[in-house]
């Protein structure tokens, strides 16, 4: 890193589009120097792997992980991608980065040197620092262990296939995959007590009971004695509704074989691993895009790269952050790269050149130190809260954001608010809600497990704002659920007042 003292900085690292391994390392060092020493990014060590496009297709199919258990759905994904790639309908993403320690990033062999530098800056410094810093990733993923865990799960699944047959394993995996979105913990559960602690508490309780003992209490008439305890008043189990269906199945399903339980656990772990990524798509991509843009521009300012390099970088950067209007061809929803990059850049602008509007809206960050503000935002927010906090009126104007209300009993769609003074807060609030996972994933919880009776499982779908479950796929999922559970499974739909609206039941 010391080779790039300012004195030597006026020299170009290289020219032209050809890359070799030495050049990659040189560029990586140059970018690292800026990222770490100038912008104080905190990163995992990087492991940059150069792969061919077929290997990229492989990596795509297995959810971006370098290794995974075999399953037909990955084959489907692979075929789909391969087909689209062959026909030229889709280029390959130029990078895949894995949230692990060391952070693994894939570079594609076909890319030109500027693209490789862009990917290094994007993945190895952008995403990498996000993985290391963001609270959701810190809380829910264990970067040190994920690769080892995937190796374990692959071996375990393959061993099960040998022992119990492909069909049985595939059926279990299918059922687990169907429930994957309901297999994550959103709140930390207290760590279970160790046996020692358990014994200690037990002793404390006994001791307490002993010290509190007084024969006088015996003489008090007991409260419910006259009515005689109702036999039906058995406490409901589980005492609190459980939202992690896979966890509940893993722990309580009456009929699962031990190996099936382990498979449920593997899928649950995977779902949990991907949980933060789904919650931070905009921030994560925005952060990485902001950094590749900033780092490479800095490289250019230092005179390390030439105009041609920068033009190629900018051209693909522009493609990445393109946002089409809702009525334009090829509109595919809000582009997380575009929104994220715009917001990140906007935060920097608010810090560096605040307008009066910014001072009114963001009094605590306007004119502040942009590095600190962005670092704070990156560490402590997810998409929902990030947008709720940092989307500025200026951006709403630039993106021409508007909100449409789709209400069931209204024959028309209604334009709820647009980018004007009355609408800013409402648009921001609604966009933030749009990234709320609760709005996307139906609220389904285990309410009752009749473990003394017919062992049936009752789930409650709490309907929010009248939005129903998709009928056909729900009954499919219920079938999967009852396959895992082994006994009857009921799904009750409950409205906001707790009234049961409908009930689906699958008999095992």
């Amino acid at each position, binding site marked *: 890193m010391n080779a790039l003292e300012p004195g030597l900085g006026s020299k170009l690292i290289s020219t032209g589009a050809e890359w070799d391994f030495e050049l990659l390392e040189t560029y990586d060092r140059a970018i690292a120097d800026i990222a770490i020493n100038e912008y104080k990014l905190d990163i995992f060590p990087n492991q940059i792997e150069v792969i061919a496009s077929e290997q990229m297709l492989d990596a795509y199919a297995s959810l971006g992980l370098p290794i995974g258990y075999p399953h037909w759905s990955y*084959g*489907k994904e692979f075929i*789909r991608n391969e087909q689209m790639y062959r026909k030229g309908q889709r280029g390959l993403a130029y990078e895949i980065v894995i949230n692990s320690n060391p952070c693994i990033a894939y570079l594609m062999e076909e890319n030109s040197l500027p693209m490789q530098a862009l990917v290094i800056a994007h993945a190895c410094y952008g995403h990498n620092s996000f993985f290391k810093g963001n609270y959701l990733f810190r809380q829910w993923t264990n970067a040190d262990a994920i690769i080892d865990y995937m190796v374990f799960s692959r071996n375990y699944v393959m061993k099960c296939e040998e022992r119990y047959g492909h069909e049985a394993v595939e059926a279990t995996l299918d059922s687990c995959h169907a429930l994957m979105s309901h297999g994550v913990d959103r709140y930390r559960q207290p760590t279970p007590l160790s046996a020692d602690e358990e014994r200690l508490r037990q002793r404390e309780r006994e001791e307490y009971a002993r010290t509190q003992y007084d024969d006088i209490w015996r003489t008090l008439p007991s409260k419910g004695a006259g009515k005689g305890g109702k036999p039906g008043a058995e406490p409901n189990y589980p005492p609190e509704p459980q939202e992690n269906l896979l966890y509940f199945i893993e722990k309580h399903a009456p009929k699962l074989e031990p190996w099936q339980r382990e498979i449920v656990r593997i899928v649950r772990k995977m779902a949990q691993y991907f949980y933060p990524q789904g919650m931070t798509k905009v921030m994560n991509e925005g952060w990485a895009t902001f950094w590749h843009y900033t780092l490479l521009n800095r490289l250019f300012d230092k005179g390390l790269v030439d105009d041609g390099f920068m033009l190629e970088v900018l051209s693909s950067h522009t493609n990445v952050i393109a946002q089409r209007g809702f009525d334009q061809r090829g509109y595919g929803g809000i582009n997380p790269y575009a929104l994220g990059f715009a917001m990140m850049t906007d935060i920097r602008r608010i810090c560096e050149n605040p307008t009066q509007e910014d001072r009114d809206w963001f009094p605590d960050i306007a004119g502040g130190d942009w590095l600190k503000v962005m670092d704070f935002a990156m560490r402590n927010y997810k998409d929902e809260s990030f947008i709720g906090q940092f989307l500025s009126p200026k951006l709403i104007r630039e993106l021409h954001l508007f909100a449409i209300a*789709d209400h069931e009993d209204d024959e*028309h769609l209604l334009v709820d608010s647009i980018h004007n003074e009355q609408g800013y807060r409402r648009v921001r609030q609604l966009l933030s809600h749009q990234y709320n996972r609760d709005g996307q994933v*139906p609220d389904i919880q285990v309410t009752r497990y009749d473990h003394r009776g017919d062992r049936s499982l009752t789930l409650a779908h709490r*309907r929010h704002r009248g939005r*129903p479950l998709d*009928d056909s*796929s729900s009954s499919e999922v219920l079938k999967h659920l009852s396959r895992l559970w082994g006994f009857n499974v009921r799904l009750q739909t409950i409205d906001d007042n707790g009234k049961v609206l409908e009930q689906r039941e699958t008999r095992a």
Partner: protein
Amino acid sequence: MSIVIDRRLNDRNKSAVNRERFLRRYKEQIRKSVGDLISKRSITDMDRGGDVNIPTKDIGEPTFHHGQGGDREMVLPGNRKFNRGDKLQRPDGGGGGGGSGDGEGGGDSSQDDFVFSLSREEFMNLFFDDLELPHLIRNAVGDVREYKMQRAGYTPSGVPANLSVARSLRQAMARRIAIGAPLRREMQALKAAEVPADDEIAELQRRLDRIPFLDEFDLRYRHRVKVPLPISRAVMFCLMDVSASMTEAKKDLAKRFFTLLYLFLSRKYQRVELVFIRHTDNAQEVDEQGFFHDQQSGGTVVLSALKLMQEIAVARYPSDAWNIYGAQVSDGDAFGADPEKSRAFMNEQLLPLSRYFAYIEVPDDPMRTSPLSYAYQRIESDKFAMSTVTSKGDVYPVLRELFKREAA
């Protein structure tokens, strides 16, 4: 801080196992799709991969998600003309435009079919599965060609048995001349001098002597390469009764039968020509399209087709230059003296010309012996095979004898 690793040499086909699982899981749908392809394709075109499609709903993975209905708001970009309070028509199909509320950028679910291509191998395997071909035969038909070793010059490496002595020595001599030339030139110069410098000459001589007579890199070996061995050429006569009683299903069976025979022949012979003869009460030579798809009306005279085959064979495919194969499909109806005459004609005229003649019958009622098969049953020749076929699995046994004999 960073490590750069070259992984390009790692295994590239990591997803092959997943792909294969996918194919296995949806075998039924894929087979159906392949079936459609087979009926659309020409016989000579069967021998390659193809695009198959599976209805998307069959391969979906269900999850709990929201359906249509209820209240919600969406935020979209790119407003140009709307103001607060504007009312819009709902777009068709309910929902609402972008589907930006779907979370994971959905929208893909609206595609109708999942289309992808099968490799030639996968395609052929499904085709053979359909016909319930035994594996040994798959190889005979599907893949393995015969090879012969052919000389292809010389190589610097090989086994001792292939050592070419003359070549090696020639190589050695060339090397000795080339390496020694400057030395000899120098020596000549020294010798020609007034006072020959004996020491230097002796030194040069020693150096010349040290040039080895034969060195390892002089060795040359005869090089041999495997070349696929085309045997010769064949003509395949496809005969079919196309009277109204031949339904599409029967023709489909027929097509599979012809295809199998064609595949077998095209592996065995460098060049295979197809002649399509259809007949009702008189026979016609037609192209493949007309053969399989035109509906004709009229009676049935089998003999006419056999006669036409014989005429064409004699006129265009002399049996000393062509291997003649015949394949006939019929529902077995024949009237009057026709079956007997056909049998006699077959026995006396056609079989002597042909290498093999296979007849399959696709009857309406498999329990009944049709007039034609009653007659054909009495043909005693190992060149002739016949069978009644009611399902695709029955096709192969007709050709079993042929494969057994010729594939060996």
